[in-house]
């Protein structure tokens, strides 16, 4: 049988429909499509995809089960190495990981590994009747700081080994960036809630409204009998560009904009938490967070949404599918553009004019690509005299974050680097005995899967550390 050179298309909501709702964009494979896609896998000997995956999912094995139509068996294989398959199948940048190194990709399109993972996880969630069982306790207690992807992964891996795991979450809902950051249309909250429930079935205890570094310190966790701590406290304060006008009303960090819409449900018709809806919106940045913010603004009723990014399409760091979806939905990409000032309304005759201080526009300069910089990407250089203004009513800054300062400032002996990231060795161990860390708290803003990988490494190290005790 000849191999189809293209992967099976992911069915999606039509762009003109989905641009006005918050329901999931990608609808998922049918059983027939999943089996057909699985049949494109060569089951090759060297299995490059497995090493391309940060959590080393046994990819050819689970795909082989999909071919047979044994979807539950496929799920169990994924579940051996990943605690959050329904999440990863949706948000991993597969084109840079497993699918990038797929043998098939040398000649054709790679196997749709992410789409198959999502199918298998969704199938399990829809059909599984048996709850996960908590294994026999090994008597050791571990505390996890933060319930984002790294924390949940670390918790899941340790719980499966019999550890008594408590996860401490600062916000009122578990999930971290999966609930406050990634929008409903890309990752439904019900899927995150389901993954969290599975962890609870495994015996993981989740304490919301506890801020480690404030409500309790890491030293107190040890006093309470926890023998090891994993810090997955995530992204911290948003970065701004330090250009004039960033404090005008209508300028948001992406974290604030997305938190209002996602966690606080400002996207609802009659929200308790306000957000600026409609108007014209410029989102500054080119990562996944920028795409999420732009597409959220569109769904909140914006008549026009720009992505303002200082490099070109080639350097755009967002996941390919998100960029394609954004373009289909009509987001206006202003590439090789850099903001120099945000403009606001000011009535010189009436200081009490209620319109005063609200955003009216953004002044940008056009850029060209020069010599490669330290990151290997060509450095954008401003073109003199190319400044112009875009009329907008809101600006969202999506240019990264720096790690959360609360834990560093209250934990003696915890070393951080110049950017505030917690320093860890290859085992995820920090400068403090028994304290491990991973995810954005270590690396600064990165991906869900790399955070999960770090949580996994730390879980393995914690297991080795405590079983030797």
């Amino acid at each position, binding site marked *: 049988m000849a191999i189809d050179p293209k992967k099976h298309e992911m069915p999606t909501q039509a762009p003109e429909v989905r641009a006005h709702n918050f329901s999931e964009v990608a609808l998922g494979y049918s059983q027939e499509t999943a089996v057909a896609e699985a049949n494109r896998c060569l089951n090759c000997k060297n299995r490059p995809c497995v090493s391309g995956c940060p959590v080393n999912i046994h990819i050819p094995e689970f795909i082989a089960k999909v071919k047979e139509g044994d979807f539950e068996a496929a799920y169990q294989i994924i579940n051996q190495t990943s605690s959050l398959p329904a999440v990863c199948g949706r948000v991993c940048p597969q084109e840079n990981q497993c699918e990038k190194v797929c043998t098939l990709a040398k000649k054709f399109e790679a196997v749709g590994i992410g789409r198959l993972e999502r199918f298998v996880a969704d199938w399990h969630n829809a059909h599984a009747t048996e709850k996960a069982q908590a294994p026999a306790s090994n008597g050791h207690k571990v505390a996890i700081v933060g319930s984002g992807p790294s924390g949940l992964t670390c918790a899941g891996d340790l719980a499966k080994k019999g550890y008594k795991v408590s996860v401490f979450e600062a916000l009122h809902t578990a999930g971290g960036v999966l609930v406050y950051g990634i929008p409903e249309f890309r990752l439904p909250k019900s899927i995150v809630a389901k993954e969290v429930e599975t962890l609870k079935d495994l015996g993981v205890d989740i304490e919301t409204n506890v801020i480690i570094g404030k409500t309790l310190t890491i030293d107190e966790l040890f006093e309470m009998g926890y023998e090891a701590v994993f810090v997955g406290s995530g992204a911290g304060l948003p970065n*701004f560009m330090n250009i004039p006008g960033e404090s005008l009303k209508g300028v948001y*960090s992406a974290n604030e904009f997305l938190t209002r819409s996602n966690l606080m449900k400002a996207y609802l018709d009659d929200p308790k938490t306000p957000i600026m809806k409609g108007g014209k919106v410029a989102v500054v940045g080119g990562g996944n967070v920028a795409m999420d913010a732009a597409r959220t603004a569109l769904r909140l009723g914006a008549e026009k949404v720009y992505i303002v990014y200082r490099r070109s399409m080639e350097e755009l760091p967002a996941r390919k599918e998100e960029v394609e979806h954004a373009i289909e939905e009509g987001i206006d990409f202003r590439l090789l553009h850099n903001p120099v000032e945000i403009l606001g309304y000011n009535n010189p005759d009436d200081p009490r004019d209620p319109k005063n201080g609200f955003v009216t526009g953004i002044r940008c300069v056009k850029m060209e690509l020069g010599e490669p910089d330290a990151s290997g990407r060509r450095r954008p250089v401003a073109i003199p005299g190319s400044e112009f203004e875009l009329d907008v009513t809101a600006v969202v800054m999506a240019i990264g974050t720096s790690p959360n300062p609360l834990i560093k400032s209250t934990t003696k002996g915890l070393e951080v680097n110049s950017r505030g990231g917690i320093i860890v060795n290859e085992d995820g161990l920090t400068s403090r005995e028994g304290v491990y860390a991973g995810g954005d708290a270590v690396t600064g803003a990165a991906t869900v899967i790399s955070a999960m990988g770090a949580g996994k490494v730390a879980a393995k190290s914690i297991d080795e550390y405590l079983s030797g005790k």
Partner: protein
Amino acid sequence: MYKIVRKRELNPTVTQMEIEAPLVAKKAKPGQFIILRVDEDGERIPLTVAGTDPEEGTVKIIFQIVGATTELLNHKNEGESIQDFVGPLGKATETDGIKKVCIVGGGVGCAIAMPVAQEFHRLGAEVTSIIGFRSKDLLILEDEFRACSDKLIVMTDDGSYARHGNVTVPLKEMLEAGEKFDMVIAIGPGIMMKFVVATCKPFGVPVTVSMNPIMIDGTGMCGGCRLTLNQDGKRVTKFACVDGPDFNGYEVDFDEAMSRGRMYFDYERHAHEEVCNLYKNA
């Protein structure tokens, strides 16, 4: 869920509650704040800690009914619970080396100023308190301030009680008379804090102000609470939730902070009316 152990009306628009939250009660210090949600899907609002009872495990909050969320909160009764209560957040008020302090509180800001005055009193500092209100019926915490102040001056804007005028009047008089405060701490509306700073400036007295911008997570994640400080000729962005809420009054850009505070003014007024109508019709 977090139980409301006691509730007391301080004036028709200001309510005091003691909430069961043992971990927060053990940790909270004057100047710090908490974030709460009244019910599922509710808004997160920051409120300053007005006192704690670590033994009982309760935290005192005092709030003015200004919007939809505080209206909802005020309709909760003793014995009922609120959905979420997290803290303590922010840095505690700096007390080191301050032997003689002037606490200036305006309106419901007095609820935040009170535990700060009590803390200085406990530490043995000489405490002068100036508290101001729009009128007599909005007066709160007079007895509490009297108990922890070596000198207390009460002001009303309309002269309906105690001395007529705003808080900067007696402050200026004292400074002109040669009072040497190690620190003036101003807590109240932005415009009041701005004028306290202006009053102190000619005398070179340091001023600490407590900022209360719009906030969401309160843990150093969203950046909504940012404000601008003028430091050595440079404009520096700071975040009230982790860098504050106390700041050097001479550095704060009050006009910008006050403007940002009005971002959702129309929305909030509308939302508050909706909640009021809900209770009116019930």
